[in-house]
């Protein structure tokens, strides 16, 4: 059927499909086609016309999407440029010392980023230490052990966690979690580790309820869904044949997960963890509520601290004076650089995972 309705002169590369539709749209037309040269020419000119239209629209679409892509890049460049320009006064005034100074004194205009940078990194590490093992546990359960009927509900519940606005986590942390920790957990921690050399320093001081540890716990809840859903997705990329082979030679579930699933997905897992870390580093509102907002570096995890984003959120509106504002913008730039590095690493890891899959 297709054969006779494609005259040789019209079978022109990828335009063929269109000719085919136009010519074969009506069987009667198709049957009568083999003949008339004039008719053929007329059809051909109409086709060229139509093709030019398609070309124009294709070109327009190309330009539009290209513009959209460039807009993102320009926006990003604009953000970086304005951060750099805004932080010039602070860079001039403090230089590298900005990173190594703990003092943050708006009265004398002596600013240093060490306390917020320290707080940002420590809260994020606490969050990852809690969230990563639980997330991996959930993902393994969901992909390897969970009955099919339960997979959907648990998966949806995890994703709903990701949809809760961070201010809600903050309020919950301040009104529910912090008082609970203050009354039931922190006094026990302080008493339990009072005579242990290093841990007594880590869990020292009055139980305020809020502080670095509380902020870390809230962050852990917030990054859990990201790490879980990425881990679940990469676990599903493990070819069934690998797992079946392992089971066939008598491996237990634990051995399959440890020796097949995790090694196979290692790179993707690291990418997922990095994405979670990126969120933990930048999280603002929830942390501001529960960290205690003190510009001090304390060895105790129960003591109040601060993070970069919490400092900016707290102080930007009422920052009077150019140097003060500039120091806050410089903090923003530092956070931008830290987050950029983390995201770059995670992208690189994910890229390598895709390459492995291709093999």
């Amino acid at each position, binding site marked *: 059927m297709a054969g006779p309705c494609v005259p040789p002169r019209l079978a022109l590369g990828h335009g063929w499909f269109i000719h085919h539709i136009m010519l074969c749209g009506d069987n009667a037309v198709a049957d009568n086609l083999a003949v008339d040269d004039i008719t053929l020419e007329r059809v051909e000119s109409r086709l060229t016309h139509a093709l030019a239209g398609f070309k124009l629209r294709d070109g327009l679409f190309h330009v539009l999407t290209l513009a959209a892509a460039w807009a993102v890049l320009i926006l990003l460049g604009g953000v970086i440029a304005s951060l750099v320009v805004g932080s010039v006064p602070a860079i001039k005034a403090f230089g590298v010392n900005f990173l190594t100074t703990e003092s943050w004194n708006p009265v004398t205009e002596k600013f240093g980023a060490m306390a917020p940078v320290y707080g940002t990194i420590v809260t994020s590490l606490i969050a990852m230490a809690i969230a990563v093992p639980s997330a991996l546990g959930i993902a393994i359960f969901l992909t390897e052990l969970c009955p099919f009927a339960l997979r959907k509900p648990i998966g949806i519940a995890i994703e709903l966690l990701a949809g809760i606005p961070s201010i809600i986590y903050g309020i919950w942390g*301040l009104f529910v979690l912090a008082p609970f920790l203050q009354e039931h957990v922190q006094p026990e921690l302080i008493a339990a580790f009072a005579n242990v050399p290093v841990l007594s320093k880590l869990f020292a001081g009055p139980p305020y309820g809020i502080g670095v540890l509380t902020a870390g716990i809230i962050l852990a809840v917030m990054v859990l869904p990201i790490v879980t859903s990425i881990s679940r997705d990469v676990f599903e990329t493990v070819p069934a044949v690998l797992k079946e082979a392992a089971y066939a030679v008598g491996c237990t579930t634990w051995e399959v997960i440890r020796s097949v699933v995790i090694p196979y997905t290692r790179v993707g897992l690291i990418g997922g963890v990095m994405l979670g870390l990126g969120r933990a580093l930048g999280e603002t509102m929830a942390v501001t509520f529960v960290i205690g907002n003190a510009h001090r570096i304390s060895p105790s995890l129960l003591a109040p601290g*601060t993070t970069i984003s919490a400092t900016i959120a707290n102080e930007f509106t009422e*920052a*009077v004076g150019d140097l003060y504002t500039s120091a806050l913008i410089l903090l923003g730039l530092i956070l931008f650089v830290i987050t950029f590095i983390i995201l770059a690493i995670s992208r690189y890891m994910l890229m390598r995972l895709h390459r492995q899959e291709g093999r």
Partner: protein
Amino acid sequence: MTFSFLRTSFAAAAISLLTGHAAGAVDISGAGATFPFPIYAKWADAYKKETGNGLNYQSIGSGGGIKQIKAKTVTFGATDMPLEAAELAASGLVQFPTVIGGDVPVVNLNGIKPGELVLDGPALAKIFLGEITSWDDPAIKKLNPKAKLPSQAIVVVHRSDGSGTTFIWTNYLSKVSDDWKTKVGASTAVEWPTGIGAKGNEGVANNVTQTKGAIGYLEYAYVKQNNMTYVDLINKAGKAVAPSAESFQAAAASADWANAPGFYQILTDEPGPKSWPVSGATFILIPKVPGDPAAAAEALKFFSWAYEKGGAMAEDLAYVPLPQTLVALIKKNWAAEIKGADGKPLVN
């Protein structure tokens, strides 16, 4: 039926549009301090009902307000921390107060009811410096011989966000303690030697309520509305006073406004037996030669109206209206300083 309804409502809309123009409605825009936002909003609402003229006030913070008015993107700026006369002159701005408020220390101690504890400036400064760390410290006991004070650690709670409330508080501590003045100083945000920071009045209130042995400071309005356990203070005259509209007004009345260029007065540690020692006014900034004289004149009309009729509304929200003598001074100042492009005063 529907059609005629539509037609009438359309006609009504057209008329209101027309009359709006006929009355010469000018958009007044203001930006700045968050502390007076509730009362400005309430005044604006009542003013709109009475005159048809609207006011758009954005509470973006004092720092933002100062920046915006210097860039002249708004009709007026608002700040809790007054600018000094030199800075006003340099940026060509006029400054005047609108309402008075104040800070009140609040505590969470078993068995202590509102007003039962008395503190003085030096003791407060030592507590906030972290030098007095327990509630049964001799310095506190001496001021409160009858109170049963526990041997409990003091937890200092301060604002984590920059705020006019903090400015007034640290300004007071600087006046009563040399140590505070040299080690910490006064600003909308300072390097706190001790304690935990909480966001906003509600954050401080919540942390004080939750933590046994805590002490913090709050805006008076917040203390009044939430029945917090406030502390009485000993003022400059050596008298113990409770925070109230009367004691704030006493502080405002005792200040020498006539000799303060730009009304630069921070009402802390004021003399007078009834003065609350941690009071402060909130201020408006307006250019001496406004870019849009019509809008500036409209803004001054609004504040003039607020001084005259807004007192009761301010009291409803636990702000303290200005004394009449001060209002007269402010109006005199407007006539002398704020001028149109032609050099004539905008208001008389």
